[in-house]
């Protein structure tokens, strides 16, 4: 991990020389994280990968997070590893939910006003080929669309599945089980 000053140096370099896309940093439990603007994520990742002295050439993981009810709601997290520096860096792109009603934060828009629109971010398959399946997984579970992905479809859930099951507002599913303590609340099969 870069230490806290190292992280600030990276953030400063990024904002001054390459892209002005770093919104914030945090360094906790020995882990370094850059919070960035999703619109310029490709430029940023390319800079981290190709700049001499940085060389974060290995994307060890890419995953999605749903922070509901926080704003912005979604996060796409890139876990980068630099072999020459022997350091790991986390990059988190904060994505707003376009399906949300701006006048009433936290509530989804009606379908007619675009409530079923999905959040979008650029695909980084061109930089890190390994991201192809990772991005499909994030799409499968969170409904985050990766622009420019060669083959964006569900990877783990069945093809005809409806919904984004890892979002926090997705119902858990399953069936209630009747025990002695709740037998009066649960609907009974024999009635």
């Amino acid at each position, binding site marked *: 991990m870069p230490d806290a000053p190292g992280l600030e140096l990276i953030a400063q370099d990024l904002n001054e020389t390459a892209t002005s896309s770093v919104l914030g940093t945090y360094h906790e439990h020995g882990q370094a994280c850059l919070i960035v603007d999703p619109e310029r994520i490709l430029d940023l990742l390319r800079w981290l990968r190709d700049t001499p002295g940085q060389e974060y050439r290995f994307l060890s993981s890419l995953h999605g997070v749903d922070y509901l009810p926080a704003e912005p709601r979604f996060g796409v997290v890139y876990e980068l590893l630099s072999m020459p520096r022997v350091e790991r860096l986390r990059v988190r792109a904060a994505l707003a939910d376009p399906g949300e009603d701006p006048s009433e934060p936290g509530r989804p828009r009606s379908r007619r006003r675009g409530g079923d629109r999905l959040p979008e971010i650029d695909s980084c398959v061109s930089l890190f080929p390994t991201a192809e399946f990772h991005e499909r997984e994030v799409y499968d579970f969170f409904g985050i669309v990766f622009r420019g992905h060669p083959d964006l479809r569900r990877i783990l859930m069945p093809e005809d599945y409806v919904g984004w*099951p890892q979002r926090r507002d997705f119902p*858990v599913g*399953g069936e209630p089980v009747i025990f002695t303590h709740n037998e009066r609340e649960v609907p009974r099969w024999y009635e």
Partner: protein
Amino acid sequence: MEIKREKLRALSPLEEPRSPAELRVRQLRARDLLRGDLEGPALERHVTESVLTTTLDRATRWGRANSIFPATFGLACCAIEMMSIVSPRYDIARFGAENMRASPRQADMLILSGRVAIKMAPVIRRLYDQMLEPKWVIAMGACSSSGGMFANYAVVQGADKFMPVDIHVPGCPPRPEALVYGFNKLQRMILGNPEPGWRRRYNAIGTEEWARPATGSASSEEAEAYAAARELSVAHDAELAGETG
């Protein structure tokens, strides 16, 4: 209770000797038969006991129950326990089911060993449809019986939602002994002599949780519903007893 037990014993496919002394007499009779000096009423007796009472159907069932070919099919962590039933320690070969077949077309028993994901369900159904008749299914563990701890969007809440299941083995995961015990129950089922549940053995039909008379602040309507459920349960048991007895 005593009468019931007598009845159950009479149900077993080959009538069992009732005491050690009787068993000894039978053994001696069988030895005499092999020597060739069994005649008259004794020979008659031997034939009645060992041959004529066995109908073809019973003989077939006996053969089926004692030569079962399970499919090599693991779903999750229960499969680890399932694997060990063929090992010398638990040794399902004692009951004639040691030969795991790698193709459903050669198998006649499927052990659902683990949680069934909704994506796996059509695959399992297809495997089941490919198996030869007659075929049996054991749902092993809580997950394949009811969804278990996986009450979520990805797991089928009980495999009997999409295929018939003969035996449910409880546990998370069940020990290999439990699976072997479940298998023995399946054998008894195939023999046409299903093990009665503990409620029947202990004369406790009608005491199910759902058929229990309501207590406390229950309305008379609810009490009526419970009474009706209890009657249903007792009637169902009487029906079962009529079928087998």
